């Protein structure tokens, strides 16, 4: 993975730049000590690390604006950071950049049940957003696996999803407004508590722009009344093809579960050994969750059981209690941990048309054998968002490279069958160089033209998303 050579002029001006930042920020908000900076050298894509020039932790929109004005004047690159849980390297710094962390901006600014909105500072963690409203029977729907740690700022940057987006959508569908600070230090209000944009949908393009258009400091979120209850059913199958066909039939039948999760045999076995959820030993299993009052849940699950029954399931296990629900979800929720126990792994995030599922799983099996690296599949089957986990040994020379090449082949396959490189993690540095597989030069140029408008000098998180060669002229490289 290649990063641009750091700008020697900026490295040489480090003391002056840090001094200027200290003029507008409190002493404890500017970090330039090399040891302390190590905390900011990577995100959850920990294979790649680089210490930044400095890190700043402002406490207000005004401080963010003041700091960005200085960085813009100095020509310093800025890497925005939420909680640093990106799996794509979205918050990985370069040596000549300032990391701008919004974690200290975590207040709830407004909750309005009548209007079903909530305004928070963007450093607030995803789970604590729901935590602030759950006693009133409300919740914030997007629920990425990292929700305990990840910040709303990062969710907005990556347009994060989660297990329940089949029904509730991803971040962009639950975001109504932001306070955006541009690289020039200008503070903009985009959207608000109303439901639609007056002109161009700037909010729509800001969400998912990976911190390249501005720094989001506040967000107005749509909140929902929590359903009366939820219950999963676990269904085991003799083959992935049959599981895929069952998913298609359920969707065709007009039931819209909140989640349809899929695991294949390698994943089932690993989680069984790790967390002992008591899963059946089969080729593929689905966990399908439905919501509502008890009678509504019964009605939906009865329909799902009828449909699944036509696909010769190995087992249908319907939860009848909180404890049984917990056990059904236990394996799925510990899948990544279970894999981490066995091996190092790389988690992919491509999306495919649901109809291509059997074909893609078969081809992944062939590629896995060809590369000699095991691949376990766990994913959101309802929307086709796959998370193949490639197992490898980070300490064995050449294995990371081999793993990345296999990953690139699998993601290319996702695009070839009509899907995309990333469904919810983002491009970051990880998939940057594969963008040409999905997009033509004109498609990429159109996206880069948007950045030209928001950040003409290309100082915000510049070496991400677009292949370095494609963005070189704009970055002045």
């Amino acid at each position, binding site marked *: 993975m290649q990063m641009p050579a750091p700008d020697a002029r900026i490295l040489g001006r480090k003391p002056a730049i840090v001094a200027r930042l200290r003029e507008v920020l409190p002493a404890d908000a500017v970090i330039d000590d090399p040891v302390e900076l190590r905390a900011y050298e990577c995100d959850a894509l920990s294979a790649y690390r680089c210490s930044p020039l400095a890190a700043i932790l402002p406490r207000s929109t005004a401080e963010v604006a003041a700091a960005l004005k200085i960085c813009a004047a100095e020509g310093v690159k800025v890497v925005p950071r939420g909680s640093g849980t990106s799996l794509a390297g979205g918050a990985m710094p370069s040596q000549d950049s300032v990391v701008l962390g919004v974690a200290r901006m975590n207040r709830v600014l407004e909750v309005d049940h009548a209007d*079903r909105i909530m305004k928070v500072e963007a450093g607030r963690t995803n789970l604590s957003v729901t935590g602030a409203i759950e006693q009133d029977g409300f919740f914030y729907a997007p629920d990425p696996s990292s929700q305990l740690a990840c910040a709303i700022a990062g969710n907005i940057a990556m347009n994060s999803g989660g297990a329940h987006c089949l029904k509730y959508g991803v971040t962009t569908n639950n975001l109504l407004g932001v306070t955006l600070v541009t690289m020039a230090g200008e503070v903009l209000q985009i959207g608000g508590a109303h*439901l639609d944009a007056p002109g161009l949908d700037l909010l729509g393009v800001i969400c998912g722009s990976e911190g390249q258009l501005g720094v989001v400091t506040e967000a107005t979120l749509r909140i929902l009344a929590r359903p009366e209850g939820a219950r999963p059913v676990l269904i085991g199958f003799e083959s992935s093809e049959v599981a895929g066909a069952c998913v298609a039939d359920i969707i065709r039948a007009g039931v819209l579960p909140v989640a349809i999760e899929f695991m294949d045999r390698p994943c089932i076995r690993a989680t069984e050994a790790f967390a002992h959820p008591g899963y059946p030993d089969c080729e593929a299993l689905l966990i399908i969750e439905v919501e509502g009052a008890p009678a509504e849940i019964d009605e939906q699950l009865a329909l799902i059981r009828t449909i699944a029954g036509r696909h010769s399931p190995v087992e249908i296990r319907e939860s009848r209690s909180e404890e049984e629900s917990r056990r059904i979800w236990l394996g799925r929720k510990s899948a990544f941990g279970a894999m981490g126990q066995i091996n190092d792994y790389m988690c992919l995030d491509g999306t495919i048309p649901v109809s291509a599922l059997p074909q893609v799983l078969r081809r992944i099996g062939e590629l896995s054998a060809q590369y000699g690296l095991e691949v376990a599949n766990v994913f959101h089957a309802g929307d086709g968002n796959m998370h193949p986990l490639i197992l490898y040994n980070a300490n064995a020379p050449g294995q990371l490279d081999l793993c990345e090449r296999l990953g690139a082949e699998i993601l290319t396959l996702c695009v070839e069958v009509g899907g995309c490189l990333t469904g919810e993690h983002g491009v970051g540095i990880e998939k940057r160089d594969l963008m040409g597989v999905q997009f033509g030069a004109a498609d990429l140029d159109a996206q880069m033209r948007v950045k030209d408008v928001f950040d003409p000098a290309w100082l915000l998180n510049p070496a991400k998303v677009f292949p370095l060669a494609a963005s070189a002229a704009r970055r002045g490289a």
Partner: protein
Amino acid sequence: MRPTTEDELAGIIRAATGPLRITGGGTRGLLGEGEPLETGGLTGIVLYEPAALTLVVRAGTPLAEVEAALAAEGQRLPFEPGDMGALLGRNGASTIGGVVATNASGPRRVQAGACRDALIGVRFVDGRGTLIRNGGRVMKNVTGYDLVKLLAGSRGSLGVLTEVAFKLQPIPPASATLILPGLSPARAVAAMSAALGSPYDVTGAAHLPGIGTLIRLEGLAASVGYRVGRLLVALAPYGQAVVERDADAAAALWRQVRDAAPFHGRAGDVWRISVRPSDGPEVAARLGGEVVMDWGGGLIWALYPAGMDARAPLAGIAGHATRVRGGSRDVPALPPEPAAVAALTAGLRAQFDPRAIFASGR
């Protein structure tokens, strides 16, 4: 001009020397002058996978044709796009591209999202004559910037849509509409907020003059029955609701809301105002005339004296107002933007349409 391929369209745009007026069915009142550029030659369903809830369709395809194809498979567009023809006195057939260009979203927007939320892919030719693809045909996609949303509601100001992709929704087997008669706008919004803030998954909440306050439930039959019962109890403080269980009768009511039917054929300008729902009653009070409220009070259709500025009395209320019918040289139809936002908008238009040939959206 009526291109039948993307290449032909791109050629026309590259060769254009003056403004072009992009025209689908001509039913949505998009503004501007120039040589007509019709999308009616770019039609047809490209891909429809009912089991994946996915549709890809060329932009000039009539909305009615899209809806019929989906209905044949028991599916629909989730966002319930309206038909503005009768309101605006136009006879054309609305196209799916026009729906996207105006982000047309009806009553179900409160639960299922807007057009922009169901839109998962676009192909368009920008003002430079370049074909651009963004998004795709899968529901979850964060690969690169989301130009799909930027194009939704862009009123033809960035490019000509040639192909659009949607995620779909199965048509639920049952529905019911609760009708609360005689509420003031303030009480109506309170009732709608109570319903929308309940766990009963309300898919429409509107206030229709002369009819009442409408709350819609959809889903499996037993579930709808259960939720009707619970909402009757929860909404008891607002009066005794009548339950409309006849699907056709209920659909007709929701079409009236969706298309602002009470204002069809009546004198005066029509404004569409978007605010936070709890400000809805204040908007209604300040405008003084007749209003239809949708989205739980967050969307207000107002009949207002011809040529008058409905924005002036609404000063201080956050949100925006667009005049959808009528005209006045002195009052712009589209809401003015704060200077910093307007600069970004202008910058984007300059990037995608540097020669300013797409006058229709401005």
